[in-house]
């Protein structure tokens, strides 16, 4: 619902088909040559099994290649959830203790593990991609497992991000 409604909203407000708008305004300027709604026949050997390979229609479902860009908009990185909203929906227990919602993705609001640093904005995709951007460290991390998220892979994500911390060379 969320992304389908956004897809229609973006297309109507821009006056362009969604795919055209995204390509002209985001993917092409960022050099994201392998991101789109479908995989060209010549590149069919590139997606791994978890990636959608059919043509996208209304729902915003993109095939991401290895060359991803990143948004760096303050609105995306600021928690916009009100206390009233937290009172009626916590997403899952403990989530709001250290996490907020920016426009589009989650933001870390309090450091409660080695890897969760306040100010990072991030998302773990259900198909096995974990990403965050850290404006303070000028760091972008992307983990592609190509496996559906499970409790075990959740621990693997945490180990990966924990391992990134000592790799930062100040």
């Amino acid at each position, binding site marked *: 619902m969320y992304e389908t409604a956004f897809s229609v*909203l973006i297309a109507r407000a821009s006056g362009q088909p969604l795919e055209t708008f995204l390509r002209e305004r*985001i993917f092409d300027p960022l050099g994201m040559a392998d991101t789109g709604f479908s995989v060209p026949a010549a590149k069919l050997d590139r997606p791994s099994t978890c990636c959608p390979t059919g043509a996208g229609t209304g729902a915003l479902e993109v095939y991401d290649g290895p060359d991803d860009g990143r948004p760096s908009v303050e609105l995306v990185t600021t928690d916009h959830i*009100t206390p009233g909203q937290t009172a009626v929906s916590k997403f899952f227990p403990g989530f709001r203790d250290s996490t907020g919602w920016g426009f*589009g993705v989650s933001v870390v609001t309090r450091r409660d593990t080695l890897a969760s640093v306040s100010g990072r904005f991030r998302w773990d*995709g259900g198909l096995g991609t974990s990403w965050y951007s850290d404006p303070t460290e000028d760091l972008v991390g992307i983990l592609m497992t190509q496996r559906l998220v499970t409790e075990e892979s959740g621990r693997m994500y945490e180990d990966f991000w924990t391992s990134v911390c000592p790799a930062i060379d100040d």
Partner: protein
Amino acid sequence: MTKPVAATATLILVEECRLRLDDPVDRLLPELADRRVLRRIDGPLDDTVPASRQPGER
């Protein structure tokens, strides 16, 4: 990993004043106008009342 893409595309349109963050969505998404919502979260699907606020109100 489509959320950052949807957010970036939307905020591009906000910067160009083609979308406004706090405008009702009814003009561009009339399908979502005159929303009815469940009276109770665990109530029957036909027990609805007019929505008292906009989606995304803050």
